[in-house]
């Protein structure tokens, strides 16, 4: 299948937008106004964009601590996200949740929580309800390689397979859980995608930094998940640019070798796609600059909005304990 010019540009623009938002968060973090832990998605944008571009507005996603890219790619409001990071009442959770609890029901962003693995069963349950209610919508559940070590991952796969639930499990394998390489946590004989197979769930490994591959493959897969009401798991190898939590680069800690870092830094999904689009005349340098400017303007306004917003009133402490 070929990708049209307009879609190519859209894929690129979406990735660039997420990158610029994350970088702006990183650059403003030291102002100490966003006073909550942030797990930035820099480097992993292609997965969020490639998958979410194939989802409809009513399809739902669930995610984890590293949720910014998923939230934005699914159409979550940037203003509400930044409001949340600034702890303001205009935030998507009115400041109560912070960066690790993004939600935007209008966009189908149903849950993000920092307890590793905990939204995998919750996403499975949303898919179950979709099926019970005979809705044609699907769920994409995003999680990391670390999350596949939790029991709920296995328990959810079994249930999803048993009940033929329309859910796409998306494992972003950046090979690390905080500072721990996957080889310290998982047997070299273990394969995340084969685990799915052993539960009777089809799976595919995709290059997590190749936006077109991700987009095209998940398009087919999501059609299948929808039409056949079957779960599917994709595993995408990728790379986290910044420290696990926080705005900085932590390469000096040497928990990832120089060889590894250099290899992956050549595989930036955005720079490489930009080369491709320029080389084949989909976009000119000038157009890219213009795109940058427009995105930056949007970001500027969203940050201003968040900064100027009010903090929540004390009454909110008690207002939402029970519905």
């Amino acid at each position: 299948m070929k990708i049209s010019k307009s879609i190519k540009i859209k894929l690129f623009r979406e990735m660039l937008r997420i990158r610029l938002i994350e970088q702006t968060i990183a650059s403003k973090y030291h102002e100490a106004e966003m006073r909550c832990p942030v797990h930035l998605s820099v480097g992993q944008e292609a997965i969020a964009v490639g998958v979410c571009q194939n989802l409809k507005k009513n399809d739902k996603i669930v995610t984890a601590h590293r949720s910014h890219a998923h939230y934005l790619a699914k159409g979550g409001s940037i203003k509400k996200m930044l409001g949340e990071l600034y702890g303001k009442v205009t935030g998507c959770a009115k400041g109560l949740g912070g960066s690790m609890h993004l939600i935007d029901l209008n966009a189908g962003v149903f849950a993000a929580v920092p307890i590793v693995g905990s939204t995998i069963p919750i996403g499975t349950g949303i898919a179950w309800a979709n099926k019970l209610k005979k809705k044609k919508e699907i769920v994409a559940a995003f999680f990391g390689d670390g999350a596949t070590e939790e029991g709920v991952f296995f328990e959810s796969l079994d249930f999803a397979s048993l009940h033929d639930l329309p859910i796409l499990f998306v494992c972003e394998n950046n090979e690390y859980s905080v500072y721990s390489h996957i080889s310290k946590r998982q047997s070299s004989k273990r394969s995340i995608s084969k685990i799915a197979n052993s539960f009777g769930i089809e799976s595919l490994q995709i290059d997590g930094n190749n936006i077109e591959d991700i987009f095209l493959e998940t398009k087919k897969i999501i059609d299948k998940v929808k039409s056949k009401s079957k779960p599917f798991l994709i595993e995408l190898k990728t790379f986290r640019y910044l420290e696990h939590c926080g705005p900085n680069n932590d390469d000096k800690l040497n928990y990832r070798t120089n060889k590894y870092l250099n290899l992956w830094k050549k595989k930036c999904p955005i720079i490489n796609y930009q080369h491709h689009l320029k080389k084949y005349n989909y976009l000119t340098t000038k157009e890219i600059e213009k795109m940058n400017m427009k995105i930056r303007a949007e970001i500027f306004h969203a940050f201003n909005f968040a900064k100027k917003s009010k903090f929540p009133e004390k009454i909110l402490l008690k207002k939402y304990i029970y519905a």
Partner: protein
Amino acid sequence: MLKNIKKITLAESIREALVLSMKKNDNVILVGLGVDDPKGIFGTTKDIDKIFKKERVFDFPTAENAMTGISIGASLLGMKPVIVHQRVEFSLLSLEQIINQAAKWFFMNGGTKSVPLVIRLIIGRGWGQGPQHSQSLEAIFAHIPGLKVISLSTPYNAKGLLISSIEDKNPVIIFEHRWLHEIQGEVPKKYYKIPLGKAKVVKKGTDITLVSSSYMVIECLRSAKILKSYSIDVEVVDIQSLRPLDIQTIMNSVKKTKKAIIVDNGGINFGISSEIIARLYENFSNKEKSICKIERIGPPDNPIPSTRELAKYCYPNYLDIIKKTEKLLKKKFKNLEKYKDNIPLDQPNKDFMGPF
């Protein structure tokens, strides 16, 4: 300062306890996510993997329930695992193994075999940690017979209590507050024990008793210092051991001062302060019941929000303790404002900038 005492942080003191215990007993092993990483659990396990062979320090998959069960299994053959969770909340995934298995093992096997296991739980606070990274859940564990529950507050007691916990034959849960890791104090260099099950009078006084644990002991001591300038002589009791609870030491103090505030580190409903007040009244004579005045203070009954503007209402501090004292003593202290510091309530000190 004496040659055999040095000033170190609470994190360093925990590290010393671990290293000395590992040197003394080959069966002691460290288990937990990140125990051998560059940050070494806020410094408490830093580079211990370099002192001992790899087989003594185990990073672990993100599999808390299995990690606990596996450690229980290892302990049954004489290993002495010391588990750590960077946040209390991660241990909630392992409550089955802790509460059903470890806590009851000795009892349900008719005293055949016990589970000697230590689980360190770190309480988070500040910098917008949010509802799932800032809970003080001591009461959940203190509720369970078969567990011992310890709460650290100073570098000195951290080392002695941790060493005793490692020597204990039972599952011991140790609460560490993230804001205490950097505090400094004098700690003997040697291997020493502080008995589990004992509270400690950390400051003697005659007018009122403050009973507390963990980070809140620091706030109590601060308020005691300020209250001194208003001629109030405060006694501060550090609970140290939440289970077994040393009600006798608390009782002796309250009987002496006749007035007490139980300063709870966690939520007060169904909490540690509830238990202490109930036990005091169960043990008081009728006369003491009518004379002694007891209040409590603790975080309000809601999850802790991320935003600093609301989180600040969730952590009582030394000023709140002083105001409670005013109420209890029916006094009015003038110019309290001058004791207000300008450190935001989501930072333990001005240098702490998150993110974790």
